[in-house]
């Protein structure tokens, strides 16, 4: 009974989008066949699937490289962003010293910095991780800082009445209240991270899905390009799904607790 209801709920939640995606793929397949488009212009989903199967070993290798860059950069960026947010929230000195600089750096398009990282860190995975970290740090920093600073004044007053120290206010009130904001920013950052890794690979790489896209574009191997694109999409989808899932598991109180 319970299981049945669960399946029903899942159906209700995911069925519409699933049906839509399948319909879209069918439409794509049909129009390619109908207009007999050449493969190098637009391959059909069937051809793309065939390409993925054919090159599965190579594609798996390049996917794992990009995934590694994405996750390492994301983790580094998230941790740095969170730590900086706490520092800036706790100290006026840090706030005045770093915040204006961070705003300036944030307004520079990080893509424009990618070539510099290649010059400084070479062609390996390191410059990609650095760009990814740089891209994902700001959403985390800004959102978490917001959560840390804008705590209900009454909670702060309550802590004052009980003579809590600044550190106690930080750990008992500010950090827990900022966690929903932190997770929201992680959802933004993980998607940015995939973009960051690809940008790094575009600028200079000899492995990774970005590299696959570059190479296959010069060879007019559009099917392979789409294969890499599909894998990138799948990767981003599962990564952000993982972040959402961990939020649900780690912050069960957040769901309906907005006005407690």
């Amino acid at each position: 009974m319970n299981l049945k209801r669960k399946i029903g709920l899942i159906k209700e939640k995911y069925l519409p989008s699933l049906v839509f995606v399948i319909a879209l793929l069918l439409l794509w397949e049909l129009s390619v066949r109908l207009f007999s488009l050449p493969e190098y212009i637009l391959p059909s989903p069937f051809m793309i699937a065939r390409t993925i199967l054919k090159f599965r070993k190579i594609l798996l290798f390049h996917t794992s490289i990009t995934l590694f860059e994405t996750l390492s950069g994301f983790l580094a960026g998230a941790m740095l962003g969170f730590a900086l947010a706490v520092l800036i929230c706790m100290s006026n000195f840090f706030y005045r010293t770093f915040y204006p600089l961070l705003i300036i750096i944030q307004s520079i398009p990080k893509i424009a910095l990618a070539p510099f990282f290649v010059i400084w860190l070479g062609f390996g995975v390191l410059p990609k991780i650095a760009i990814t970290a740089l891209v994902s740090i700001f959403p985390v920093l800004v959102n978490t800082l917001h959560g840390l600073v804008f705590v209900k004044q009454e909670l702060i007053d309550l802590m004052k009445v009980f003579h809590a120290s600044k550190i106690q206010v930080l750990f008992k009130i500010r950090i827990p209240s900022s966690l929903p904001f932190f997770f929201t920013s992680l959802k933004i950052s993980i998607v940015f991270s995939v973009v960051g890794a690809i940008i790094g690979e575009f600028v200079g790489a000899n492995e990774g899905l970005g590299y696959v896209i570059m190479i296959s574009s010069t060879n007019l191997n559009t099917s392979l390009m789409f294969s890499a694109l599909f894998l990138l999409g799948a990767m981003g989808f599962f990564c952000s799904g993982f972040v959402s899932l961990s939020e649900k598991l780690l912050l069960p109180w957040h769901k309906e607790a907005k006005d407690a």
Partner: protein
Amino acid sequence: MPEKMIEAVRIGKEFTSNFKRLEVLKDISFSVKKGSFTSIVGMSGCGKTTLLKIICGISNPYSGQILIDGEGASKAGRNHYFGIVFQEPTLLPWRNVYNNIELPLELNSCPRTKFKADDLIKLVGLEGFENVMPHELSAGMKARVAIARALIFHPSILLMDEAFNNLDEITRSNLNLELLRIWEEIRTTVLFVTHNISEAIFLSDRIIVLTPRPGTVRKIIDVNLPRPRNKQTRRLPEFIEIVENARELLT
């Protein structure tokens, strides 16, 4: 001996914002007897909350003097003389009822006698809800948790800042009765801020009526209605008379 638990002498407070001086409180003097129930009544924005903050020592600076049990407010604060309940229950949504009530105990070791969280849960009528999370509670139950949390250090003074404001009428009058029952059991001094005149009179031994900004004492009214009070109290002609008089003062 009924001594003075709170004594306010010519309290004044100004805020400056955008280079404008705003006088919020002016020349407020009153005293509160130990173990009594006193309400501060005034219109919104007359500085009632500011006055409470001054009394419990979290708002500085101000002019005038506050004596708590004969001592300066900051010194009194260090000995945990205060428990406070706000308009919003301000519970921590990631802690269950029990842990919310125990929060103040985690903050520092202090020499005051403490209630056990279990006893408080019984006192405010939340048995069986110890492990429930705040978002699963009704507004009235959240208010009960907030009261229990405020009482954990057995405070000499319980400050309540429009604590029942966000409740519906029925829940509010139920909690009024509950608050009186709790107060009669622990006999602490209560200072209750509200803009609801009949609530103030129903609960209190005395009400302090404040004028609109700058807030100053308009009149202090003794409420000599019999205790224990119950639903019938609100129908007494004396009750209605005091409410009418107080209403005149505010308008």
